[in-house]
């Protein structure tokens, strides 16, 4: 009886893990040996999420066979939340960690985006220069740094302390391992069924056209958006926010060569002052002025106009519109399922949706990703008064020739803004017991053939200089993603900066606030009011951030 109960308990413990993380069987190959830990194994703890894990099994298996280094793969979808505690306990400020602590410390961590710069500063992760400078003999002796796309190549490069950064004493610490494209994913048949300009698969190129599409969907009694606001799910709208913001503000060019508040998106990430000094102290607004950029107000206003009914003068009567019923309490997965069940025509998400809805969609379900519509002059003029824009702030989106739409500069092609959300990371803890093998593993994972096989299995690009669409075996959806991703005229947003405040105080778009919290208030506060709140929050905390960044 005891044995029976023990067996039952073991099955009930292991089964949910196996179901959640995959049992290690892929295409008829048995990778079960990778999921059982033996002494001497290289311990890799990874986030599966929407990326799937199928790509990792064959690579780890081949690595074992080629190098003789055995690997233990542990799926942990909570790794992003848990890893700070794991790292902290394995890297005490004094003394050495116990053997048990070290046994629980992964040799390789694969997480979602997190504030990894803090780990560098606290000495919790190892410098992996050897991974970046390793020469791939079969690929013409290129290094990982050579193979990564612009922006991704220096994404994981920083000084351990602010002084190190100033002295140029920088190292590589993390490898970005995915480059998922985010934006609006749509139901192809639904849009075509509207007829008119949408009949042949045309998708909105501008925000004004997006509103046209929504009107047409409403007329046809089709719910435009499936989205979920629960547990940070609202953050999916932040992907759209980023693209709209960059479309209006410019990524690294600005309208009239403005700076700070009137500067580009990169001015924001560099926290430049009115004179253009990074983390600057000069000018009316010091370095936090860019929190008040008009592009941020416009981007938030677009989202508000898309999903909030603000007709009433009384804000208490504002309500969500153009959305599935009761969206706020839905999780992102529930929203994705509703999209797959054809309860809505579009959903804000990323290329990982392919894996999320694989089991919920019918066989004939056709879906694709559209390029995020550009912010056009007509829309800006319509909302300018409400947002309190200055005359020099009334212009349209960025064109491909790096100029902006104005009343006289018209008729050009808008730049396509791709928010690629580079940020899923691989890194090695400093006290990892098998650091040398971990370095070999990271070098191996980034071999050309492994990058390509991962792309096919995940359906998500990796941030490398290659043409993912040229690989065979992609679904129609993945092809649509890569068509947007590979547009040579696209501007790819990567959140990186040389700023110490960005690196050491780890401050991003929403100051001290959580992005989901801000976006969830769109049915209660104006877009202008919310951005101004963030601006005040930034100005209040500015000195604190500078202290954290070692600038005082």
């Amino acid at each position, binding site marked *: 009886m005891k044995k029976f109960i023990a067996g039952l308990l073991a099955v009930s413990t292991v089964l949910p893990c196996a179901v959640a993380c995959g049992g290690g069987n892929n295409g008829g190959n048995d990778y079960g040996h990778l999921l059982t830990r033996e002494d001497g194994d290289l311990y890799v703890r990874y986030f599966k999420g929407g990326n799937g894990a199928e790509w990792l099994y064959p690579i780890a298996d081949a690595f074992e066979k080629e190098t003789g280094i055995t690997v233990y793969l542990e799926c942990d979808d909570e790794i992003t939340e848990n890893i*700070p505690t794991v790292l902290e306990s394995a890297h005490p400020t004094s003394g050495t960690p116990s053997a048990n602590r070290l046994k629980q410390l992964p040799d390789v961590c694969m997480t979602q985006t997190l504030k990894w710069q803090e780990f560098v500063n606290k000495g919790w992760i190892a410098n992996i220069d050897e991974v970046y400078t390793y020469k791939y003999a079969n690929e013409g002796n290129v290094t990982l740094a050579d193979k990564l796309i612009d922006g991704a190549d220096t994404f994981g490069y920083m000084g351990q302390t602010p002084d190190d950064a100033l002295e140029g004493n920088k190292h590589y610490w993390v490898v970005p391992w995915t480059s998922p494209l985010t934006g609006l994913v749509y139901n192809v048949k639904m849009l075509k069924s509207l007829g008119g300009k949408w009949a042949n698969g045309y998708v909105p190129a501008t925000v004004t056209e997006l509103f046209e599409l929504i009107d047409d969907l409403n007329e046809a009694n089709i719910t435009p958006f499936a989205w979920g606001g629960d547990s940070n799910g609202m953050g999916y709208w932040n992907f759209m926010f980023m693209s709209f913001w960059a479309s209006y503000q410019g990524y690294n060019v600005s309208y009239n060569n403005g700076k700070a508040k009137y500067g580009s998106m990169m001015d924001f990430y560099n926290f430049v002052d009115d004179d253009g000094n990074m983390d600057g102290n000069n000018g009316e607004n010091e370095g936090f002025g860019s929190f008040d950029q008009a592009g941020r107000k416009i981007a938030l206003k677009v989202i508000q106009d898309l999903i909030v009914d603000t007709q009433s003068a009384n804000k208490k009567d504002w309500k969500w519109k153009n959305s599935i019923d009761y969206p706020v309490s839905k999780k992102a997965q529930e929203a994705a399922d509703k999209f797959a069940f054809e309860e809505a025509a579009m959903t804000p998400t990323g290329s990982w949706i392919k894996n999320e809805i694989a089991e919920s969609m019918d066989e004939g379900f056709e879906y694709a990703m559209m390029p995020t519509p550009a912010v056009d002059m007509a829309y800006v003029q319509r909302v300018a008064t409400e947002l309190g824009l200055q005359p020099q702030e009334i212009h349209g989106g960025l064109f491909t020739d790096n100029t902006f739409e104005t009343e006289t500069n018209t008729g050009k092609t808008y730049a396509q803004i791709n928010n690629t959300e580079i940020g899923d990371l691989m890194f090695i803890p400093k006290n990892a017991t098998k650091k040398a093998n971990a370095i070999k593993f990271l070098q191996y994972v980034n071999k050309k053939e492994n990058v390509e096989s991962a792309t096919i299995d995940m359906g998500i690009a990796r941030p490398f200089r290659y043409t993912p669409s040229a690989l065979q075996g992609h679904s129609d959806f993945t092809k649509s993603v890569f068509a947007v991703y590979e547009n040579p005229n696209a501007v790819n947003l990567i959140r990186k900066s040389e700023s110490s405040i960005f690196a*050491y105080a780890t401050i991003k778009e929403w100051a001290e606030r959580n992005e989901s919290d801000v976006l969830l208030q769109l049915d*209660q506060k104006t877009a202008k009011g919310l951005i101004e709140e963030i601006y005040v929050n930034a100005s209040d905390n500015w000195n604190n951030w500078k202290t954290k960044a070692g600038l005082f």
Partner: protein
Amino acid sequence: MKQTVEGTVETTVPTQKSYNRAKRNDTIFVWCMLALPILHFLIFWLYINSSTIFMTFFRYNPSVQKYQWYGLNNFIELFRDMFLGGDPRTFNSMLNSLIIFPVNNFIILPLSFVAAYFLSKKLPLSNFFRVLFFMPSMIAITVLALCYRSMFNTDHGPVFMLCNAIMGGKAPDFLDVTGPYAMPIAFTFSVWSGLGYNVVLLNGAIARIPEEILESARLDGITTTREMFNIVLPLSWGTMSTLFILNSLSIFGWFLPPMLVLSDTGGVEGKTSTIALYVYQLVNAGKGEDAAALGLMFSIIGIPFVFGVKWLMDKITPTIEF
């Protein structure tokens, strides 16, 4: 004493040496028994609390990669956030933590008492109801929260669908963390999941009441209501008082219901957060100093309150022995 072969009894007087040995053995035994609790106290209370308090006066400086003296600034910043509108999240977290006090003591406890009293009356199916009341305490809280949450799901939740039918299709989204129903839903979950524990303890207390007292009251023609409030309540007041104090202490650690039923983010501006949940999130975000300062500051506010409650309960608890 020892029995001799001849059957006579020879008395042995304990020597000073054997007395000392026995005393030493006693001392060793006592210290062995005390060692574990003392060690536990030193490590898990003294060391942890003192290092937490110590941490509140420091702040991590990335320039030197060390914690540096920060004086009372952590507390000043926290005070500004909590009471001067600096961060509504901190204030809302405190408010929600304090609200659990009346929920625990003025809703859950009276309900538990009434339930325990009727279960003690050996009514038909009382054993079944006893199990039913205790069931939420036996199921893992994550599973319980999942079941509870699904009752309010806007697609298939039976409670939501019932409300929707009653309200003509206009039922609110009870799980909307920005709406007015979110925290009441979390408190209701606390009531549901918290009844069993209290009922079991109170049932024990009621079962200890001598049957003769109740029988004599019944011979005097006492009604059920008077029996419950005039006989059973005073005689089980000691347990009620203990539960009241324990429930009051929960304001410091209450965070699972809002986290599991609503959202682990604490909602917009902390509307569904509590102090314990906020501390947990601060620790996860690598802001250990802020977490320590918040915990300590809330303790400074809460401990006198809990002591006040204890003093009050001691005052009003009659000394009854039976």
